[in-house]
């Protein structure tokens, strides 16, 4: 199964931890062979959002999330089941100041 881990935190906590490493998390996950990709995201105010409605392209600033928590990074993992995915997510350092959303991917 593949799961997308969305690393979320509020803007301040996210910025405070932006330069932190993954405290050995990446190394362990590479060792276990579960990482399929991922990366950290620059702040949402640098983003643009695109919509196409009635063949018109609309650009807006940033994502307009209702919550204070924003996606700050993502990791794609491949592992046996939800239990393993939750265990991997719980080990991620960002889980201690933000939260990690564990989303199962569609299986082809």
């Amino acid at each position, binding site marked *: *199964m593949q*799961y997308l881990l969305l690393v979320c935190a509020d803007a301040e906590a996210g910025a405070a931890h932006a330069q932190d490493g993954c405290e050995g998390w990446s190394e362990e996950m590479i060792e276990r062979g579960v990482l399929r990709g991922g990366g950290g995201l620059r702040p949402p105010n640098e983003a643009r959002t695109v919509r196409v409605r009635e063949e018109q392209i609309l650009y807006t600033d940033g994502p307009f999330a209702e919550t204070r928590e924003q996606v700050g990074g993502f990791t794609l993992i491949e592992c*046996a*089941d*939800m*239990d393993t*995915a*939750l265990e991997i997510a719980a080990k991620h350092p960002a889980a201690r100041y933000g939260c990690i959303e564990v989303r*199962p991917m*569609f*299986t082809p």
Partner: protein
Amino acid sequence: MNTADEALGAAFREEWGQVLATLIRVTGDWELAEECVQEAFTKALERWRAEGVPRRPGAWLTTAARNTAIDRLRRAAVGAEKLREVAAMWHEPESGEHAEIPDERLKLMFTCCHPALTMEARVALTLRTLAGLRPAEIARAFLVGEATINKRITRAKQKIKHAGIPYRVPPAHLLPERTPAVLAVLYLLFTEGYAATAGDALVRRELCAEAIRLARVLARLMPEEPEVSGLLALMLLHDARRATRVDADGALVLLADQDRTRWDAAEIEEGTALLDAALRRRSPGSYQIQAAIAACHAQAARPEDTDWAQIAALYGTLTRLHPAPVVELNRAVAVGMAEGPAAGLAIADALAASGTLSGYHLLPATRADFLRRLGRTEEAAQAYRAALGLAGTEAERGYLRGRLTELGG
């Protein structure tokens, strides 16, 4: 009712969960498994009436369900490997010679109570798959629409399938984290049935019976877990008082006023024995402590024989283990009984000052009771009125009005 129908009724209560659990394991498909088990029970009704009840109804039902599954998979032309797997799962079922069938229900319990599912979904799924309750029955027990329950169950099954929730008993290192989730679901089933605040009385009694039955299965399958036995003991000790908790008109009867000769002695004995065995493992937990409190009540032949000092101490332990304002309120009551109303009122007043239980009618009701016993009538009446404004059921309001009238007269 004839023998076949009776046997089928018994088989439904005893075997549904086990047969379904086995079918889920071999087919890996919850929907298919459920349809096949349902069909097996339908077939059984016809065949058992005509040919008599088989010696092992559970094995008969599992074989029938398996055959339906093979049929359907064949028609759906799935891989030969899956088909062989399903076909091979049962050797000579009708001979009765096969080895001990491993109990599959534990896997089903842990999967239905997986933390990735919402509590509501866990409860509905447990009742549907393990207890075999129909969505309409679950809906009546929880006072929600049948469509809501159906949606909850369907979504939960979808989630198990698509989110990769494993069908298994979790490995040892996950058990301490996962067992409480299963216990919480069983306890919620029981309290929903026991609290009897609303809903169909018969269905609610069934909920208690199902919770006890599932706890028994769990206690047998996990004999080394004292909290599992503790929960079963707690349910039995509460259930023993079931017949005396409301009077003929459905009005609430307080513990002190219940007819203790009508408490179920067999349930009390079984609950107490289970609790003693659990406590000997010296790994106390909240269910064991709550059961110990229930045992203190159950063992007192008259209300005045109740060991309130012991109960107050047990609530103290419970508060340290799991601090919760409701537990603290119960401790206030016990302390009030052991040391007098002034000591109890001090704890209740501290709770009221903290504001954590505002809106909960039992806090002013408890304070009112202490104030009444202290002769502070005007303050007591005020507190009863506050409780009356917050109480949720007519039975509780009736009781509070009675107390208020007594004060005036």
